[in-house]
């Protein structure tokens, strides 16, 4: 009889333990998907920087794409698909960085063209003056 009671107790403890762990695991699973705040902030910063550098004018398509990725990331956060949200945020950031880099390249090219024109005009002027002589 005594032996039986001990076994019952042991079985109960085992059951409780199992239940406890199951609960812990369930709670862990429910709270684990935290929004990728860091990635999202980085993406937003990169987009803001690109916009400030007039990326809309020089690399509009890239900026547009970055904004699309960011919107998709926000959507994924709402639907608690956090891994996907993080990836989308990273894609938004890297594309905004590309927009920025292409904007700077376009600006540099414009400056060089302007300088080239200036030098050409000077050359032409000289040519003209030389012809006059």
């Amino acid at each position: 009889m005594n032996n039986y009671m001990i076994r019952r107790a042991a079985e109960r403890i085992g059951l409780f333990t199992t239940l406890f762990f199951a609960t812990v695991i369930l709670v862990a699973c429910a709270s684990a998907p935290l929004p990728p705040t860091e990635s999202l902030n980085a993406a937003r910063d990169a987009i803001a920087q690109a916009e400030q550098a007039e990326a809309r004018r020089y690399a509009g398509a890239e900026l547009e794409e970055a904004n699309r990725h960011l919107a998709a990331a926000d959507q994924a956060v709402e639907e608690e698909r956090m891994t996907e949200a993080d990836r989308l945020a990273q894609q938004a950031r890297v594309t905004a960085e590309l927009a920025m880099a292409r904007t700077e390249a376009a600006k540099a090219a414009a400056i060089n063209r302007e300088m080239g024109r200036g030098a050409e005009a000077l050359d032409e002027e000289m040519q003209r003056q030389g012809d006059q002589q």
Partner: protein
Amino acid sequence: MTILSFFKPVPGLKTGAVVVLSSVLLTACAMSPTSPDGSEDVRAKLTELQQNPDMATHARIELRDAEAAVKLAEQPLDDDEAALADYRIYMADRMVEIARAKGQTRLLEAERELLGEQRDAARLAARTLEADRAHAEAESARSSQADAAAQASREAEELQRQIDTLEAEATERGLVLTLGDVLFATGSAEIQGGTNQNLEKLVNFLNQYPDRNVLIEGHTDNVGSAAFNQNLSRQRAESVRRFLTGRGIESQRLSVYGYGFERPIASNDSATGRQQNRRVEVIIENRE
């Protein structure tokens, strides 16, 4: 007891587990060398940039980062991780493009320095040219001034020579050439002897200085009436003009006056004085 009995070794289970495990491993080995689709394209783009010396110089760090991203994208993944593969390829592709854009920017900036130098050189050349030209212009102005001065003095000399040959007298009215009465018979207005040395010289002079106008003034002695003398002096002056126009001098350059005996240059009391008074004076006007 039922739980315990489940863990009891079952004959043949061990063998089965080994077979399953090894087949799983074999499958994994067979899949492992293949990189995700699309990663080759990114690798090709990266390689192209790495082989471009301009890019290798100007985007060294970005190319290194891109290389790491491409390597990650090339890691084999299971079929159910296609999303992760796509994500990695996307990221690698963007990083390659960033490296390209940054390399281009820095290359352009480097070229800009060169352009600046070129422009400075062009400016310098323009300024040098300008200075040279100004110098040359000053030089030529100086020399043309000298030329002009030399020319003027040559002309003055020439004029003096002409005046000398003309035996003209320089007065404030101009050069006065006195043609003596030997030209004309008494009481006649016709020039004698067809040609006259002095008149020929005058023609030459007027041809050489076409901008000079001429006054032709006739004078007489006081023999006869004033009206007669006035008329005669005028007719003599007119015949000098006819002679000159006949030799091609434009008549509008020639003005004719008859003064009669109003302006004697010597006394009419003596024959010599009267002879001096019978004359035609040709006055070549000074240039304005």
